[in-house]
């Protein structure tokens, strides 16, 4: 039997606005995933270490302060180098539309903006799992 998906929900940087991160952590938990919520004030290194140590399938990053490019590049880059297998990186928060292709180029699979129903995010993850 397949083990449940393991998801790390992380808040990189100094921003404390964690309403979205907590909502999505709860939604993943309610969907039956194993959720590790890192809390706030995480550096890229801390997040990557958590993903590796927890052997996570998915990393959800919540960023609202405008520092999304910096963290997308740092975190996705480190995961590509260090992770033994593919980790699905998704991002939630407020991104200007023209930055979305750029974070995707850095390695973020999908970006979920404000107003996204949590069910759509869960569904996206399940589809990815089905395809994998």
């Amino acid at each position, binding site marked *: 039997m397949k083990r449940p998906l393991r998801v790390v929900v992380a808040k990189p*940087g*100094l*921003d*404390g*606005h*964690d*309403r979205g*991160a*907590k*909502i999505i*952590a*709860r939604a993943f938990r309610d969907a039956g995933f194993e959720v590790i*919520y890192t*809390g*706030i*004030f995480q*550096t890229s290194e801390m997040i990557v270490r958590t993903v590796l140590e927890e052997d996570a399938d998915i990393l959800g990053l919540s960023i609202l*302060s*405008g*520092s999304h490019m*910096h*963290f997308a590049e740092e975190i996705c880059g480190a995961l590509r180098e260090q992770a033994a297998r593919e980790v699905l990186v998704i991002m939630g928060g*407020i991104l*200007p*539309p*023209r930055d979305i292709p750029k974070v995707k180029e850095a390695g973020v699979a999908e970006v979920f*903006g*404000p*107003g996204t*129903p*949590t*069910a759509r995010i869960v569904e996206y993850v399940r589809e990815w799992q089905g395809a994998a």
Partner: protein
Amino acid sequence: MAATRMPNAVLQADQDQSDPVSPQSTDRAAWERTTLASSLDRLPRRQESFTTLSGLPIADLYTPDDVKGIDPLKDIGFPGEYPYTRGVHATMHRARPWTIRQVAGFGTAEDTNGRYKYLLDHGETGLSTDFDLPTLLGRDSDHPMGLPEIGRIGVAVDTLEDVRRLMADIPLDQVSTSYTINASAFVLIGMYEAVAKDQGVADNLITGTCQNDILKEYTAQNEYIYPPRDAVRLVVDTMEYAAKTMPRYNPVSVSGYHIREAGATAVQELAFTLGAGHCYVTEAMKRGIPADQVAPRVSFFWDIHNDFFEEICKLRAARRLWARMMRDWVGARDPRSWLMRAHSQTAGVSLTAQQPDNNIARTAIQALAAILGGTQSLHTNSKDEAYQIPSEGAIKIAVRTQQILALENRVADIIDPLAGSYYVENLTTRLEEEAEALLRQVLDRGGMVESIEDGFIQRQIADSSAAYQQALDEKREFMVGVNVHVDEDEELPFEHFELDPGMAERQIKRTQSIRRMRNQAETAAALKEVRAAAVNKENTMPAVSRAIRADATVGEICDVMREVYGEYSPPLVY
């Protein structure tokens, strides 16, 4: 088909109205049995039950029966008199309209100073400052964690020189300025005082406010550094210090705003905010500072959300409950200690990135609620604030919204016009009772600090937040343009605010050059004094003030406290 049925329906309604046997009820029960019941037979309620945004039930109708327990003199009274339900001043907006106070902050001190001048030129009457994340968390701009965040969500401040440039050409005895900063507020208060004194402003003429409400950082906004107990000690230091050195300065603006934005209900916002104010005043009293020395300068900051009547009632309930808490719970004797003076901001969380023009309507209605609720100052959000630092054009609409309300709509000309409404008085009382019950739960658990340490308050807020999200997902709650009336092909927003790319480098350069040029022995000695005051549990502010004069940075002063108090790691509640 539907179209052809319409005229018949209208005809039917007209006939009903001319029905000669229409009864005249003598009380609500009779009306419910007769007129209402027969109407509901034909046209049922459009939903099973109605509640406020905070989940309090809304009945079909409010009548004299619903205000029976409310004494018009004792409970509602007169403006400027206990219990202040109708307002903190006798004249309210008829003498002095609310202050138009838009928060601003981005980039370097010069960038934000330029924005201040733009706002003052367009008729703003007070200033308010947002700081960037490194400053809020007591890190200098060249700290490794600070780097990606310099100047992004507010202005970067590392040294006294930055505050000098931030406040350049702003007369601090004429324009009141508010600083939105908490964990490192003690340093910024010291810097503000130093700049005011350099401007030659007399102590008793320095006006202004600092948010400096650390408790809500642990429950909602999450920009904390030290453990709650030590952080509260720093807040009390600033209250005691400011009472002596800047008697007209408001060292604490107890904030429900962030609690509400984090997902709390209006009842939770009331309980945890007034609870925080109570905590600061009683902690000061434990140090032997009389309540009347600090309570008159405690002010409040509220979120004005979408439920129009509930928000008006919330401000009225807050005034009445705070007055009672200060007079009867802590025994403050000076009537100024009983006043719940309020700054309000329209709800950021209600803004949508989708169809951003709709935010103008939302904000205008929320602003009206704040004014009818008797606020002393107001920030109206800009339509683009859901996704960026507001553009000048959007800010102008937000300021103009307040000016239209003040100058065209006559709402500044009447004091507490909704008093006496059966619904408004009933809801004011219900909010007060519910908030008091929740606050008493907190106090029974040991108090605000204890209820933060064990996660009680965070759990309450997380549950409300999750319930609201679920209601949105299930379309029991609506956000126009987001989960209803969606524009399918909408391209998300237009003009995007650009930070000057050389800004971060300039900021770091200035800070490093000040660090290099200062008298190192003097700075080191001053920082040592800060440490000694913290270790000995003396008021740290005189030493902090000297360290600021010796060009110690925000990061250096906060690091001294980190060494003494340690850093806080919270329970993870979601």
